[in-house]
């Protein structure tokens, strides 16, 4: 099944690329839409000159820093809020109030508070990606089977053991669902926080912005392709980790 899927996906991508290449070759689309070969050449140039490494490094540093903080704080707080009713009741209203705000709107405020630095970018990435993980973890803990908890308590598990050995593994499928959404948002925010504001420093968003300013659409497409590849690879890594950790969970994504 999976092999067949991959084959079809590969064929579809190739067909789209050929179509695009053909349209560009016969000049049926405007030249600013570039063509796959030109984009690949631009990508190769970026790789060869080593320019891409600094951009990608800077972008990945920001997004992964934010994502790791989300894993630690989001999952930790989510478990506490789900397990202890008091903590959950305390946090629920404020979470519900902040959740619907598009967090990107906070970017101008953070920029004034922390300057146009990595702190601002990592903070906005964290703020955006925190909520899906937190909410998924909290709801996951709340929907745990009470029988499992009783059984563990009956066998003399301490409070800490209960959290670590029963609640955490039991919620893991839900946690990964939340993390997957968060990971996607991490990359979206990485791009957005780099493209809003001044165009200095390194990062894939800056690369796009600078290419935009000089009208080099081939570099823009190349940078978009790099972002797409990164997003895809990290999603696959997350799914791999998930299937390693959750070998007992039949319902695999």
């Amino acid at each position, binding site marked *: 099944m999976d092999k*067949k*899927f*991959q084959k*079809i*996906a590969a064929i*579809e*991508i190739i067909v789209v690329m050929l179509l695009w290449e053909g349209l560009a070759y016969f000049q049926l689309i405007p030249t*600013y*839409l570039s063509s796959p070969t030109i984009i690949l050449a631009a990508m190769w140039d970026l790789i060869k000159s080593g320019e891409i490494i600094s951009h990608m490094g800077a972008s990945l540093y920001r997004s992964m820093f934010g994502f790791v903080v989300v894993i630690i704080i989001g999952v930790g707080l989510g478990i506490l809020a789900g397990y202890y009713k008091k903590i959950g*009741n*305390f*946090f*629920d*209203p*404020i979470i519900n*109030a*902040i959740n*619907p*705000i*598009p*967090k*990107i*709107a*906070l*970017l*101008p*405020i953070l*920029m*004034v*508070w922390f300057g146009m630095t990595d702190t601002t970018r990592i903070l906005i990435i964290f703020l955006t990606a925190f909520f899906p993980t937190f909410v998924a973890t909290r709801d996951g803990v709340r929907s745990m089977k009470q029988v499992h908890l009783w059984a563990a308590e009956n066998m003399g598990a301490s409070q800490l053991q209960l959290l670590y050995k029963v609640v955490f593994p039991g919620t893991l499928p839900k946690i990964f669902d939340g993390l997957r959404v968060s*990971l*996607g948002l991490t*990359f*979206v925010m*990485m*791009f*957005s926080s780099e*493209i*809003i504001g001044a165009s200095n420093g390194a990062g*894939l968003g800056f690369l*796009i*912005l600078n290419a*935009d300013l000089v009208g080099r*659409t081939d570099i*823009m*497409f190349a*940078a*978009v392709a790099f*972002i*797409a590849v990164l*997003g*895809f690879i*990290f*999603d*696959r890594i997350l799914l791999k980790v998930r299937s390693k950790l959750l070998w007992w969970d039949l319902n695999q994504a």
Partner: protein
Amino acid sequence: MLKKVVDKVVKYQSILVFFLLWEIIAFVGVLPERLFPSLFSVFGVLLEIVVSAIFWDNLSITMYRVIVGFLIAAALGVPLGLMMSRYNFLNTLVQPMLSIGYPIPRVALYPILVFILGIGSGSKILLITLECLFPIVISTYYGAMRVNHLFIWASQNMGANDRKMFWKVLLPATTPAIFTGLRMAIPLALIIAVLTEMISSTEGIGYQLVYLSSSLVQENVLAMVLLIGIVGYILSSSLDFIQNKFIFWK
């Protein structure tokens, strides 16, 4: 009566604590007032913005983009998801595209869309549609796949033709899942609208936010953020309202 008030206060204590902490920090003056204004002055500015015509002009433009983009995504996504669940061929064709496209940050395409469609509403609506399409298609598809086979068999047994089965059985049984997808999509639509307006636009609430923030007066910016949050809240709850009308049996 008094007990009710006390209960409300206890329930929303975290918001009160947050409010108090904010006011204390603002009052003590650890940070300069320009950077960390009291929430009372923020509310004052909020009222000023709400009564201004500029805000309503910008809001209507943003809402136009959000709603048109969202409706196009729903009009394309729901039938696609339903058809994917019925026709295997379509499913094998579309499913790989979905699983490849899902983890890719589609927002990155925005600067290119601006090149193609210009800086106006077109590029924003297209990006909103693109972003909303994924949750809608995916949850419609899985919802339709999970429709109880007994219902379908029963209706076929009682002589329902394809069209009747679709309208009377498949669609109603999938409605809850469709609404799950729509509920995921509507905040996304607003986020993308604000984001794209912040990146490049000459109108819309995202533009107004950037415009206000360039004055470096934090009261204005915070008031605008609160307003955007309220808009998001209203959008989500109006969808909930529609959902409760449609799915009366739940």
